[in-house]
């Protein structure tokens, strides 16, 4: 008899516990799965990067941080690193600015908004391989439509004696100084739809009353944008910066499939870290060295993301 009281209490406590327990069990399944297919291989790749590669683990030679030292000295890796940062620095701000601009315009139109949104979103869901191939042809010096237009433009201007205003046809993908920029344009074009949709959702989440109140106070359109729209869009901007930057740092498909004299070429001017890693791993069967590249890429993405979160994630002031 004396023992029933505490026992009942324990039972009533355990009900809440049990619910939490079930929640943990359900949460644990994806975590175990994710840990097994994501975190465990990530740790393994660090381990791999300390050895020369051989399919028989017994025949791998320990090289310690030797591959990391090689990375420090390898000019091709440095080129890939510079290129990758260039891709990020060009594509992230450009796709975000354009995306926000288009989203603001779409916000302003009442009719056909969803049709426009679908059109802008289409490139994002088009496979990168197909996109790269089509752009490869459009950029081509001899057959590409862009150069055809430039030549037609020249012919048009010539009639008025204004040839000075013409632009020469360009070797978009084989000119070492243009190639990276040409790929970046493709990436921006493809990212744009994602940005538009994200910003549009963000804009629609801003309550109208703030705009109305500000207008009554005599705010100009620029004031509205600067002091209402931008601060309230901050969470969306943070999300977008982080996601687009990570995408840019992992750039691979577009570079492999848009056609150059060689992948990552010409002269490694479009080579990204991810492509470099792939070439070393499978082209040259140097998986240990390639693993070191992935570890460095992981560290870069982690650091860049943390810095971005630090800089952009402020509390929103109303």
């Amino acid at each position: 008899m004396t023992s029933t009281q505490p026992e009942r209490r324990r039972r009533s406590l355990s009900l809440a516990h049990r619910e939490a327990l079930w929640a943990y069990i359900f949460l644990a399944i994806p975590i175990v799965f994710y840990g097994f297919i994501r975190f465990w291989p990530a740790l393994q790749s660090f381990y791999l990067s300390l050895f020369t590669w051989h399919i028989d683990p017994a025949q791998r030679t320990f090289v310690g941080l030797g591959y990391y030292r090689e990375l420090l000295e390898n000019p091709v890796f440095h080129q890939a690193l510079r290129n990758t940062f260039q891709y990020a620095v060009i594509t992230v701000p450009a796709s975000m600015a354009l995306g926000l601009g288009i989203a603001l315009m779409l916000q302003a139109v009442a009719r056909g908004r969803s049709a426009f949104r679908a059109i802008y979103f289409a490139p994002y869901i088009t496979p990168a391989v197909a996109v790269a191939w089509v752009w490869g042809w459009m950029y081509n010096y001899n057959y590409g439509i862009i150069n055809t237009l430039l030549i037609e433009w020249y012919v048009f201007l010539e009639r008025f004696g204004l040839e000075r205003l013409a632009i020469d046809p360009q070797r978009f993908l084989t000119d070492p100084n243009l190639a990276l920029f040409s790929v970046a344009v493709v990436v921006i074009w493809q990212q744009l739809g994602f940005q538009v949709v994200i910003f549009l959702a963000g804009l629609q989440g801003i309550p109208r009353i703030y705009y109305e109140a500000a207008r009554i106070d005599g705010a100009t359109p620029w004031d509205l944008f600067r002091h209402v729209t931008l601060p309230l869009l901050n969470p969306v901007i943070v999300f977008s910066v982080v996601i687009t930057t990570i995408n840019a740092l992992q750039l691979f498909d577009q570079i492999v499939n848009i056609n150059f004299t060689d992948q990552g070429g010409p002269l490694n001017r479009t080579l990204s870290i991810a492509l470099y890693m792939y070439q070393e791993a499978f082209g040259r069967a140097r998986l240990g060295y390639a693993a070191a590249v992935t570890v460095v890429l992981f560290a870069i993405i982690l650091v860049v993301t943390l810095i971005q979160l630090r800089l952009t994630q402020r509390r929103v002031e109303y």
Partner: protein
Amino acid sequence: MKHLVRTILVAAVAALGVAQAQVTITYWQYDFGARIDAMSQLIERFNAENPDVIVVQENAGPYASYKERVAAALAAGEGPDVVQLFYGWAGAWERAGYVEPLPAEHFDEAWIQSYFIPMVESVKIDGEYYGLPTAVRALALFYNKDHFREVGLDPENPPATWDAFVDAAKALTIQRGPRFERVGFGIAPNGQDHHLVRTVLTNQLGTPPYSADNTEVLYGNEIGAEALAFYTSLQTEHEVGVTEFVPGANGYREGFINLESISMIIDGSFAIGNVRTNAEFDWGVAELPTFDNGVQSNFGSFWMNGLTANAYASPEKLEAASRFIKFVTSEASMELWLDVVGELPAARTLVADPELTTDPVFGAFIAGLAYAEATQFVDEGAQRSAMVDAINRVLLEGADPLDSILQAAAEDQALLDAANTP
């Protein structure tokens, strides 16, 4: 799908019909219609003749992802026992343990040297062979006879010297404003042209690209520079072609076959099938031109059948896998491969067959094979990049050919050194 069904059928028939079947051998090659067909037929024959072995061909995916699949499967202890690999990969694959040497007890060195044409020696690493080919390929000049007629060139008299080649290419090229309507020559540094510069032109000008023991790069000098300068002059000085004229890795071939906007290409015998099937014009094949000194040279290469560590699982398996490699490299198999895939046989006797040497298409390649050399790559991907970059520095950045070839030779030498230090 057809191949898959056939493979399953073969496996099923073999499994049901042959009760005493003991050893199963898995075979991998990349997915290419004619090659899979030919191998399926060979496997069918082999399985019928060897009731104690079942060979199964598995679909290893397209060429673009073949290396990854092999690497991933072998690392997991799965995948093929007998694997097809490009001869140039032998060095990198041997270091990674993807391919093991052919066992000397089943493959007699004297037999290999007397039976196969000499280029097979290029896959010997530390005295051991890492594979044997069913077929080999060489380079030749493909040209559009209709274009030749159109500009008044004799279609039955293709250029035999590089001077004549340049003249013909100039006549064939049609410019339209700043662009080309048609180019005389399909420039493709990353296609076969890096072999053309590294192996063919340097040899023709008097130096082999590498020392006989493959420890030293020999093209880092005026001769190498002359080879590079001649090749790049086709674009920079003579303007008979341009890189990326047609986009795509095989753009030069598509431009020749499909668009008919390229009059001449230098390509391997593996392109014959594609040209035959798809070219809707009169075309011809000729031996590679030479300089005035008349020295001939050609680049030979091949895909070969090698053994993975899986094949070494037991002596029975090793014996069965070895027997299978001998079977697919027999004269009968080479003849079947020639019929189905259109690739040249690798046996000395077959290469001398008058039916082949006088063939209007195969003849030029067979003639080239006689003096072809297969570069002994230690790290094919990186060595190719070194030469492609050397070409591109001149074509795209206006670099001096000597500076550019010296840089490539230094990069190449570093790769040889790395491979030669244990």
